[in-house]
Structure formats: structure tokens, C-alpha cells
């Protein structure tokens, strides 16, 4: 009996350990494959030039149009998401502090909102766009992605704000500050690390999402100059080039894949470092 127990213990310890370490392997494997496939095609030209005439037959050019388009869309959407998300998160934690049921309900709805698939946002954005008589453009893409990432901004920021001790609220209120001052002067400073994490997370999500911009941002070989022009995005550039029958073009998709992966990796790592740096508590 003792022996059986010990074997069971050991067996499950090894099994769970294997599952855990296999995740590191999977991540390493994915990154290795992406880099191995694309590194030969990744030249400076890929990054700093837009596609030229014969690009889709294997000619000269790069994916600058998609890189810039993706950055514009992600930055624009993040700014809009901040304008809506930050006050909303502060409101939950300042004005609704004394209504815990209301807070719980709002968090519940926001969590559910987080789960809506991006293709639904894409279809909705497309419909609104058609209704307003717009064509696929940078602006439509920005707005659609903003819908997608605002719940992420609110919920991530809120996670940090709700750990702020109650005493700090009470101290600020007892000194005669209004709840708005409490929100923008005390909670904002105290939860700044959460704000940074939220913004970077939302940005990373916005730059990598393809389904929502598929209908709304369109696709073009030019670097967009104005809000009403269509814009290419990196995920879509990869997607379209992968569908090409010409190996040269497919190889470029792999290289573009490296660019996108590196951008997302940088954002993910810097989110971690920055949130540690700006954190006001000693807990993490």
C-alpha cells in the first residue's frame, strides 16, 4: 500500500512537471520555426520599403506599408481606448466604491465583453461603416480595434486599482477632496503601474488582431497618410502573402511573421518590466 502511494505520487509529479515544461518547449518551438523560416528573407529592405510594382510576383519591396498601418491602427485605437477606458476604470473604483454589488455586476459584464470574438467586432464595424457611407479606411480600422481593446484596458487597470487599500480612499475623502479628485489625483498615481500594463497589453492585442481589421481597414500598398485612406496591417499582409503560390512571396510572409512576433515580444516583456518599475507596492 505504501509503495503504491509512493509510485502514484511520483507518477503524477512527473506527469504534471512534463505538462508544465512542455509549454516552454512549445513556445521555443514556435519561435524557433518562425525565425528559422523567415530569417533569410529578413533584410533591411523588408522593413524600410513599401511594396513596388512586381512585389506580389517576387519583385522588390518590403512591408513598410503594413508595419506603418499596423502601428497607426494600434496607436490610434489605444489612444481612444485610453480616453474611454481610464475614466471608466477610475469611476468603478472611486464613485462606486460604496456599492460593491454594482461594482461586481459591472466587472462581471466587462469580463463577459472581453470574450466577444474579434470577428464579431469586425462584422459590426463593417456594418456601421457601410451605414455611415464610409469605405474601408484607417479611421474605421482604428474605431473597430478600439471597441475590441477598451474592455481590456478597463479590466486590466481595474485589477490594479481595486488592490489600493481602502484607507487611502478614506484619507483623501476626509481631507475634503471630491470623489473625482480622489480618482484622478490619488488612485491614478497609486495605480499607475496598472495603467502602463493595461495600455501595453491593449496595444499588443490591437497590433496582432487580424479579424477585426479584415473588413474595416482594407488593404493597400501605400503607407497611409490620412485617416480616410485604406491601410494595410501586418497580420493581413502575412495572411495574404501566405496564400500566394509563389515561394518568394511566401518566404516574405515568414519574414513579416518575424517582425510581428518581435514587436509583440518586445511589448510583452516591456509590460512586465515597466509594471514592476512603476509599482508602488512591495508585493511584486
Amino acid at each position, binding site marked *: 500500500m505504501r509503495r503504491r502511494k509512493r509510485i502514484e505520487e511520483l507518477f503524477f509529479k512527473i506527469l504534471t512537471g512534463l505538462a508544465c515544461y512542455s509549454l516552454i518547449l512549445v513556445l521555443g518551438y514556435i519561435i524557433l520555426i518562425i525565425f528559422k523560416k523567415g530569417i533569410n528573407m529578413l533584410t533591411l529592405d523588408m522593413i524600410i520599403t513599401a511594396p513596388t510594382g512586381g512585389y506580389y510576383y517576387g519583385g522588390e519591396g518590403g512591408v513598410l506599408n503594413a508595419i506603418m498601418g499596423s502601428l497607426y491602427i494600434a496607436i490610434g485605437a489605444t489612444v481612444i481606448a485610453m480616453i474611454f477606458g481610464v475614466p471608466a476604470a477610475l469611476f468603478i473604483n472611486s464613485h462606486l466604491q460604496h456599492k460593491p454589488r454594482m461594482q461586481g455586476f459591472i466587472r462581471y459584464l466587462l469580463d463577459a465583453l472581453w470574450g466577444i470574438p474579434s470577428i*464579431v467586432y469586425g462584422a459590426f464595424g463593417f*456594418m456601421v461603416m457601410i451605414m455611415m457611407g464610409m469605405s474601408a479606411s484607417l479611421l474605421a480600422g482604428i474605431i473597430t480595434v478600439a471597441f475590441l481593446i477598451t474592455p481590456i484596458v478597463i479590466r486590466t487597470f481595474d485589477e490594479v486599482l481595486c488592490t489600493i487599500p481602502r484607507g487611502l480612499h478614506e484619507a483623501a475623502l476626509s481631507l475634503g477632496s471630491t470623489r473625482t*479628485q480622489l480618482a484622478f489625483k490619488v488612485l491614478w498615481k497609486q495605480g499607475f503601474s496598472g495603467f502602463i500594463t493595461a495600455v501595453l497589453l491593449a496595444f499588443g492585442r490591437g497590433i496582432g488582431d487580424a479579424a477585426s481589421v479584415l473588413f474595416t481597414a482594407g488593404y493597400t500598398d501605400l503607407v497611409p497618410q490620412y485617416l480616410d485612406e485604406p491601410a494595410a496591417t501586418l497580420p493581413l499582409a502575412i495572411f495574404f502573402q501566405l496564400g500566394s503560390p509563389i515561394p518568394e512571396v511566401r518566404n516574405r510572409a515568414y519574414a513579416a511573421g518575424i517582425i510581428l512576433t518581435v514587436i509583440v515580444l518586445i511589448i510583452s516583456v516591456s509590460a512586465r518590466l515597466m509594471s514592476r518599475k512603476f509599482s508602488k507596492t512591495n508585493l511584486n
Partner: protein
Amino acid sequence: MSRRKAIIQYFSQGWMMIALFVILLLPLIIGIALTCKSGPIFRLCGLDELLFSSIWKPTGGQFGFLPFILSSLYVTILSFIFSAPVCILAAIYLTQFASKRLISFMLPVIDILAGIPSVVYGMWGILIVVPFVGESLAPFFNVNSSGYTILSGGIVLAVMCIPYVLNMLIESFKTVPNGLVEATLSLGATKWESIKHSVLRKCSTGIISAFGLGLAKAFGETLAVMMVVGNVVQISGNPLEAGYPLPALIANNYGEMLSIPMYDSALMLASLILLVIVMLINLFFRYLIYKTQKR
């Protein structure tokens, strides 16, 4: 309170409230808009015909969503079968056995896995999973297959869902009080027995919810699946056949949707079905999580 302060207070508070309400009303607005837009197709055929007919001929005015819904379910369930054991085992190891150093190394790994864009997963699927299924797995079963199959979709989706589900499982396991494990240990149970009998039982709701939410996420995932699943309209029980999930239908056909009558309504209805299913699953399991957290 000075007058200036009062005005600032008034406006900033107003803005905070407006921002919050706009966001909270968003799913309702999306739902209503999609319902309005998919209205015309209901005049053509009834809901039961739309949902349970398997004939898809947009040019002939026949819209049966059954092949798409079944494909979606099939891919989702396959991904669940592949990812669930890994998730739960890894979550147990990370919260019960792992050293602090390993945890601080694994958390960024999970973060990065969760952050990799779906198109990159799709690319990895085309490079690795599709050839593997087409050239190694299918000949093994004596089937001729291109590799662009439901099974490939399931595998890619499983890898994508692991970090998402794993994060929620870790959150849930963390809520188990240390005293509970210590109590069972002091009664003479081994570490694994205490996990099996107290931790897993205590977290059962959390585990079910995490898997449920993972399913919802897998159901709505678009691009990565679409790249490897083959996109052929058919109903087949064989995972080595191609499929055509609902999100892929929407993504693939938006270009033509304004040129064929009723096609746009049909696609909006597809989005609505997606939204309703995912929202219901989300609301239900999130409710379970909140209920257990309160207690």
C-alpha cells in the same frame, strides 16, 4: 467648494459616467444592430431552416448554417480534448510543486504564448501541423488528405487556448487556502492525495468555468483556424476531412457579400449566432466564478 472646482468636478464626473455606460451598452448595441441587419433573411426562410438545413447555396437563396456550426463545434471540441489535460496538469504543477524560480520563469512564458497573434499561430500551423497531419498522420490511417483538416484546426486551436485556460486555472487554484492542504497532509495523505481530494474538489467550479470560457474563446477564434482548416462546406465525422467553421465563413466572404442578394444578411446572422453563443457561455461561467468567489 469653489466654483471652478465644482465645474471641473461636474464635467469629469460626467465624462467618467458616459465612458462607462457606452462600454457597458456595447454588447447590447452590437446585438441589436446585428439582429436588425440579419432581419431580411428571416423573411426568406425560418430560423429552424437556417440553423438545421445543410444546403448552402447563396446564389440560389439557400442558406443552411448546419455545416458551419457543426465544423465549429467539432474543431472546438477537438481543441478542448487536446488542451484540457495539459492545462490542468501544468496548473497543478505550477501551483503545488513548482519552485518560486520556475514560477517566475513560467509566468512570462504563459504571457508571451497568450500574446502571440493568431496569424503567427496560423503560420506555424501551416508550416508544422498541416504537413504533419497530411504526410505522417493521414498515411498512417490509410487516408488521403491534404493536411488542411479539422484535426489541424483542433491542434492549432489547442495550442492557442492553453495559455488562456491555464491562467484562469492558476487563478482558481491560488484561492485554495494553504490550511486545507496542510490539514490533509497532517492526516497522513501524500501531496498528490491532498491535491486530488481537496484542491481539485475545492476548485471544481473554477475548473469547469475555466474550461467553459476556453471553449467560448476557441469557438470564436478566426484567422488561425481558417488558415489550416481547409474551408470546404461539408458535414463529415472524419477529423481528417476539411471543415468550414462559422468565423471562417464570415471572414472569407465579406468581399462578395454585397454583390449577392441576402448574402450580407446571412453573414450578419452568422455573426449574431457567434455573438449569442459566446456571450451566453461567457455570462454563465463568469456567473459561476463570481458565485464561488463570494462564498
